[in-house]
Structure formats: structure tokens, C-alpha cells
């Protein structure tokens, strides 16, 4: 098993898209874990009255905030934590819930299937952002709430994909054999069918995380996150209300923007690389690609690359969360 997982990371690393993704993601994880050592100042220190609104310089690489004199570079480093934690935890929770629902709907079928698929239809109609605002009003503002809401709304797309895959696996001979041998439903679902869809789950975790990071920035921007934490979305909100626009302090806006871009970009790359690795249809594409490559037409290759990017059924689930 261990050898297998090593192999998996090696394959991802060998993939050009996967490699850029992994490198950037690792860098971000490093920033998040060691923020206290990397950040030159305390980002929570709002007492530096003499240092307000400084332009980028050697001592403050990205300047300071106009309102409170916080060091923007240190805030940027600390903001990695919220983005990565919310993105990854939601991605993983969504994968679990989506897998469970998809397995139940696909394997058990009948009334369970109908119930789950009707729930999916309802989830798709309810306006997510207004509901999130109402729920944070009811339960209080915290990142736990945001993760919870995103998970509740994010599983639908994945469940559909898993369900259709399970419907295929259900009729395969090895599942039939297990049924005849008297294995229980739960045993078959988790021991025999789940391994058949694991690749979808890993892929969806990466792509959902990317989508959730964008959505989280939007919610934090609206002030729905934990008001005491430092996040990139909240930094943008502070920049807007703190006069960055008025005084033309573009660095205060661009800095968190680059943070969001890098984190989303890296997880998107990893997700797309995984998709190309796992999706059997893509392998056929690779065959054609080789053929074209031998004709020395590098462009066709890039078309195939990009076409693969667009057939991601689960990629949109996170992005839908905040339509703005």
C-alpha cells in the first residue's frame, strides 16, 4: 500500500501541471505552518501609530495599512492559514459527504436514491450566498460555520458523478460475486465499490478546495468570516474601507489578490493533473496526442490539454457557492 501511494505522488510529480501545482502548494503550506517565523512583524499589532500607510520599502516589503499601521506582508503570510484550512477541510468534508451520498444513491437505489437526488435538485435552486448570510446571522460568524455551509452545499455535484460511476460498478462481476458470497451492503459499498471511485474523490478534493478558496475570499470580504482572524478576503475588505482606493495604495489590494490567485491556481493545477492521470478517456486522448506529436504539431497537444480542462464535472461546485 505504501509503495502504491509513493507511486501515486511520483506520478503526480512527473506530470508538468501537477508539479507546478505541488511546488506552489508546498510553498503555501510552508508559509501557513511557519508564518510566525517568516512574517517580519506581528500582523495583529494595531498600535503602530507612527507607521500608518507606508509605501512598500525594505523594512515593510508591502507597506503598511492606512488605518492601523499593520504590516501588509505579515498579514499576507498569516492569511495563508485561513485560505488553506478552509479550502482543504471543506474539500475533504465534501469528498466524504459526496462519496457517502453518491454510494447510497447509486448502490442502494430505490427510495434512498430518489430522496438523495431530489435533495440535490433542491440544493441547486436555493440561493447559496443569501442563505449563507442568513445562517451566519443565526449561528454566528466563524470559519467553522463557513466550512459547514460549504460542505452542505458542495457535495451535490460530486454525488451525481459518484452515483453514475457506482451504477456502472454495481453491475460488474466482482460486485455480483461479493453479493452472492453473502457480503453485507455496507461491506460491498465501502470495501468493493468505494476503491473504484477513490480517484474521483481525490480529484474532487483538489478542485473543490480551489473553488472554495475563491468563495471563502468572497465571504470574508462581506465580513462573514471570523472577525478576529486575518484572511485575504478580509484584507481586501479592510483595504476598501480603509481608503486604499482613495489614496491609490494598489499594493494593499494586489497583495491579497496574488495570494488568492496562487492558492487557487496551485490546487486547480493539481486537480487537473489528477484528472488527466485518472480519466481513462484522457488516455485515449493521449494516444491521439502522441500521433499528432509525431506529426510535429505541438499546437494540437495544447488543444487537447485545454479540452481536458473543461470537462471537469466537479470543478464548478465550489465556484457556484459565491456567484459574484
Amino acid at each position, binding site marked *: 500500500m505504501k509503495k502504491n501511494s509513493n507511486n501515486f505522488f511520483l506520478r503526480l510529480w512527473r506530470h508538468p501541471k501537477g508539479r507546478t501545482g505541488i511546488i506552489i502548494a508546498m510553498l503555501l503550506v510552508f508559509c501557513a505552518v511557519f508564518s510566525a517565523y517568516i512574517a517580519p512583524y506581528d500582523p495583529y499589532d494595531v498600535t503602530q501609530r507612527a507607521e500608518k500607510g507606508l509605501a512598500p520599502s525594505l523594512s515593510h516589503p508591502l507597506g503598511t495599512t492606512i488605518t492601523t499601521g499593520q504590516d501588509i506582508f505579515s498579514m499576507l503570510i498569516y492569511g495563508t492559514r485561513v485560505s488553506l484550512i478552509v479550502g482543504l477541510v471543506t474539500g475533504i468534508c465534501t469528498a466524504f459527504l459526496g462519496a457517502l451520498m453518491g454510494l447510497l444513491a447509486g448502490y442502494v437505489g430505490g427510495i434512498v436514491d430518489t430522496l438523495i437526488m*431530489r435533495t440535490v*435538485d*433542491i440544493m*441547486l*435552486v*436555493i*440561493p447559496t*450566498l*443569501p*442563505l449563507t*448570510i*442568513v*445562517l451566519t*446571522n*443565526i*449561528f454566528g460568524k466563524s470559519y467553522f460555520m463557513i466550512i459547514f455551509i460549504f460542505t452542505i452545499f458542495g457535495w451535490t455535484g460530486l454525488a451525481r458523478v459518484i452515483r453514475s460511476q457506482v451504477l456502472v460498478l454495481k453491475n460488474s462481476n466482482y460486485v455480483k460475486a461479493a453479493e452472492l458470497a453473502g457480503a453485507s451492503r455496507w461491506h460491498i459499498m465501502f470495501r468493493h465499490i468505494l476503491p473504484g471511485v477513490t480517484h474521483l474523490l481525490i480529484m474532487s478534493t483538489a478542485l473543490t478546495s*480551489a473553488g472554495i478558496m*475563491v468563495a471563502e*475570499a*468572497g465571504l470574508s*470580504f*462581506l465580513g462573514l468570516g471570523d472577525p478576529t482572524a486575518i484572511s485575504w*478576503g478580509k484584507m*481586501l475588505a479592510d*483595504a*476598501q474601507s480603509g481608503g*486604499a*482606493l*482613495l489614496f*491609490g495604495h*494598489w499594493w494593499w*489590494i*494586489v497583495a491579497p*489578490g496574488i495570494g*488568492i*490567485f496562487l492558492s*487557487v*491556481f496551485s490546487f*486547480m493545477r493539481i486537480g487537473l493533473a489528477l484528472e488527466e492521470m485518472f480519466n481513462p478517456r484522457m488516455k485515449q486522448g493521449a494516444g491521439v496526442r502522441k500521433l499528432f506529436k509525431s506529426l510535429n504539431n505541438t*499546437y494540437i497537444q*495544447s*488543444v487537447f490539454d*485545454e*479540452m481536458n480542462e*473543461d470537462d471537469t464535472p466537479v470543478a464548478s461546485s465550489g*465556484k457556484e457557492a*459565491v*456567484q*459574484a
Partner: protein
Amino acid sequence: MGKGYVFKRILYTLFIFFIVITLNFFIPRIGVEDPAERYYPAQGNMTDVEYEIIKQLTREQYGFDVSTFQQYLRYLKQLLHGDLGTSMQAGSPKVIDLIAERVPWTLVLSVSTMLIGVVFGILIGAYAAWKRGGWLDNAVLSASTITTALPGFFLALLFSLYMGFEWEWFPAYTDPNLVSSFDWSLDAILNVMQNAALPIIATAIGSIVGYAQNTRNSVISVSDEDFIITARAKGLSNETVLYKHVLRNAMLPIVTSLGMSVSGLIGGSVVIEQIFNWNGMGTLFLNANNTNDYPLMMGIMIFLSGFALLANLVTDLCYSLLDPRVKLGGARR
């Protein structure tokens, strides 16, 4: 398309709407015994007696003095009469009136954004696909990476910073008297256009890129199909193939994504409206949230979900008109 299919779709939509309404009814009642506590949360400087009086008044005003089931029936009856409830704002305006006042202003932004996106997006996307590997094609692909990895409001902030404050091309904040002083005169319309320019530009970019990429992929995948090769083999001209065969068939996925964006036309611009201080549905909802105006919030939720359901229904029916294959299956997919 068969009558039975249309009827079934409509019935199903109504059923989903009923469930959404029921969920909506229970949301303000989550976690509290008495919804009055939700409507008026206790303030620190209130004595228990005072708070009890406030709660009693709220109960009477909003009809919480009967059992939950009776409240639910009353709520359904009220909705059947087209009444979304009464806001807690001063003067107790009807929620439906407040929504009706704001919807056109949100539509000004969202419809123009969508039109710009569809027109330019389809043109750019079709051209990019036709000249695969050209500069425009590459530009569309890199732009789509950037717009998916960046939240839309980040671009809006940058545009506000440069076009609004630095270069002063357009007003960065909407004129607060825009809505109240509007009287269909030429000046007023010009004023609206000027104020709406920045939010529209900021959102249109993402919309154009989205539709362009969609069109491009759709056109490319259609171009590889057998019937296009047949059309070419017949010796048809490039233009005939593009307009008569490729574009027509490439439109199907675009109609679907158009339908999806229609359902976001009213509720989808909360953040943009907040940035530019635009007086639309988004700011109405955020203000309702800040003042704990639950009747208004839940009214807006019902309105938005109803609109989304209607948009889905219409898209589905349009889709089955465009794609005859849907008829046979009886349902999409």
C-alpha cells in the same frame, strides 16, 4: 415536445418550490424556542421585563402567538396571495414592494453584463476556435485561467481604484440619489449609465471570458464531429460550414450556461453591488441582514429561489425545443 413532459416538469418545479418554502419557514426558527428572539435579539442594556414586553409585542405583530403548525399554514396562505410578508423597517413596507423597487436596478447591471458577455464572448470564442492557436485563442485561454483563479470582486476593486479614483473616468461610488431622483429624463438616463459603467465593466470581463471559453470549446468539439467532416467533404465553403453547421450545433451548451446565468441575474451580484454601493437586491439583502430584518431576508430568499426555479424550467423547456433528442428520453441527460 410532448405535453406530458411539459406538465411533468411544471408539476415537479412546483413541488420543489413547496419544499423550499417549507425550509424557508423553518430557518428563522432554528435554535430558538420563540422566533421573536430571532427577530429582536436581546440587547445588553435591556432588563428582563423590558425584553419580555418587546417579545410579547413582536409575537402579536408577527402572529407568533399561535402554534407553529398554524403559523406555517398561515404562511402558506399568505404566500398563495402573493404576499411575501412585511419588513421590519420603519413604516412597515411590504417586502414585495421593496423587492419590486430594487429588482430593476439590479437588472440594469446584470442584464447588460450578460448581454455584453454573450455577444462579445460568442464572437471572440468562435473566432478563437476558428483560428486555433492564434493570438486570440491563447489570450482567451490564459484569461480564463486568471478569471477562474481570482474572485470577481478583486478585479472590481482594481477597476474602482484606477478608473474610479486614479483616472476619474467614472464615478467609483454610485450617486446615493440615483434611485430617488430617477424620472426617465435624458439626463437621468445618462446619469444611470455613467454610474453603472464601472460595475458593468468590472463584471463584464469575467462574463466575456466565460462565454468565450465556453463557445471556443463547444465549437472545437463540434468541428471534430463526423458530420462536419462530411460537410467539408461535400465541398461546402468555410463560411457555410461555420455558420450553418458548426455554430448552430455549438449553441446547445451555450444555451445551458445562459440558462444558469439567468437564474443568477437577480441574486448574483451581492458583492459587486456592495463594492460600488449600487442600490439593488444585493444591498437590500445585506442591509436586511445588518438590521436583523428576518421577514425581508426570508421574503428575498423565496423570491430568489422562485426566480431560479422558473429560470431552470424555462431553460429546460427551451433546451428540449432546441435538442430533439430530449423528447425521446423524456428528461434531460
